[in-house]
């Protein structure tokens, strides 16, 4: 089987600060890859490199290669086209100060969708996929910022889905959420596995254990270990992974 995403000896620097050191890994289609590790271990930098959100950072430098469906994302693809295929859900639920409907329709409109009925369909499909539809269907034109944190985060997932990406990156999507909202977001992720490849960066190791098929452990910019979640959590190869998971540091 050909991997969806392939990262080949990736090094990332910010202002000569070496934040990712020679990271290589592959992500299969339709899997959820969990990425765990203590703060400042390079997890978020890794995500941002995957959809080239670092392009705007003047201090950002890198070498190595990343392939999406065997195409090099830096040399063989435009950043905008790449970001349409690799969507991102941020740590805080970043609703735009627009209505619920307009938040979800923002992406499709960017990409030229003007047909009202089509937009309605896309919005409904997106909200249903993140299990938000039933809670908001009667107030689509109210401000998104009135929603609760958990609802907003699922709205952000819907917004990402509306662009019809192939890969979804989550940057600590549940960091500010209560357990019930977290459970709903996690359930949405499990359901989305049918159609999407997902990469989940999380500070909460248990979350990776609950939803990820495979888990990768980052430490100080290095990929220490990657493997099936059950194995990484029960019989890690590296002592540092064991220490982190069992809470001895981090």
């Amino acid at each position, binding site marked *: 089987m050909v991997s969806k995403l392939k990262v080949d000896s990736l090094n990332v620097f910010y202002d000569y600060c070496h934040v990712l050191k020679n990271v290589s890994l592959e992500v299969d289609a339709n899997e959820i890859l969990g990425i765990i590790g203590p703060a400042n271990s390079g997890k978020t930098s890794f995500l941002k490199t995957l*959809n080239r*959100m670092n392009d*705007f950072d*003047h201090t950002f430098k890198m070498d190595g290669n990343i392939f999406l469906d065997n195409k090099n994302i830096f040399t063989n693809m435009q950043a*905008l*086209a790449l*970001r*349409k295929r690799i*969507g*991102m859900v*941020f740590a*805080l639920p*970043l609703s*735009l*100060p627009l209505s619920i409907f307009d938040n979800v329709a*923002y*992406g499709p409109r*960017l*990409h030229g969708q003007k047909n009202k009925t089509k937009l309605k369909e896309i919005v409904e499909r997106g909200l249903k996929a993140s299990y938000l539809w039933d809670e908001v269907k009667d107030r689509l034109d109210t*401000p998104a*910022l009135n929603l609760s944190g958990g609802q907003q985060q699922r709205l*952000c997932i819907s*917004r*990402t889905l509306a*662009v019809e990406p192939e890969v979804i990156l989550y940057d600590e999507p549940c960091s500010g959420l209560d357990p019930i909202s977290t459970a709903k977001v996690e359930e949405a992720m499990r359901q989305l596995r049918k159609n999407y490849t997902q990469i989940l960066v999380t500070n909460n190791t248990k979350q990776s254990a609950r939803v990820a098929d495979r888990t990768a452990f980052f430490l100080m910019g290095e990929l220490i270990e990657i493997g099936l979640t059950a194995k990484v959590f029960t019989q890690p190869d590296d002592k540092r992974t064991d220490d982190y998971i069992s809470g001895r540091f981090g």
Partner: protein
Amino acid sequence: MGDPKKIQKLMFFLLLLATIIIIVPVVAIFAIILFHGLPALNWGFIFGMPREGMRAGGIFPTIIGTLYLTLGTMAFSLPLGVLAAIYLTEYAAENWLTRLIEISIINLAGIPSIVYGLFGLGLFVMFLNFGASILAGSLTLAIMTLPVIVTASREALITVPKSFREVSYSLGASRWQTVWGVVLPNAIPGILTGTILGLSRAAGETAPILFTVAAFYLPALPRSIFDQAMVLPYHIYVLSTQVPNVPAKIQYGTILVLVLFVFIMNISAAFLRAHFRKRKLW
């Protein structure tokens, strides 16, 4: 003497005294203008034409002239200023060009208004052959207000959270789509406030319009942007130094109208700011 507590008391009293000496004349000026100007205000004064060598009648043409000039100024300086601010906040890298632009803006803000008048005369009136006209005057005032609008718009754009831009980019938006879709709509209140304040300064300026648009007296209202116009600030200059024996009532009335014109703009800017601050959701 020598007791620090006593010295402090004395010094604080002196500071207060200095502040009062600054503030009291401000209040007095407004009181004088209101006291002498209010009796002149009536419909005939505002909507009438000047009569008897401007010693009687109304000042309607000067109000219309100032209005045209303010709108003309806005038509040029608002788009230019906002686009320049967008360049500086959303596009410019930290390099020598950006620094050069910033220095230019700071220096534009410091150039004396009469020098703008000279420049407007040289470039718009003479070189481009617009003649003394509303067009030439508006362009001159637009250049003069540009630094204010750029600075205010920049501040408004910078306060839009970076995260909004990130969301937009993450959905595959281009830079311009991001500016248009999320940055600009959230910066509009700040931009408008700054623009109105800049225009209120322009509306009260005399020196830049002396040779570019202002007319001593015109029997009719201006009909096109290539016409000269009578303007409130210049009219005050005329009434107070060029025409003998103008009744004080007419002088103060004209001053009150200009002050009101400027203050209505200032107050609406303040109101706008307060209104949007209350509604702000992030």
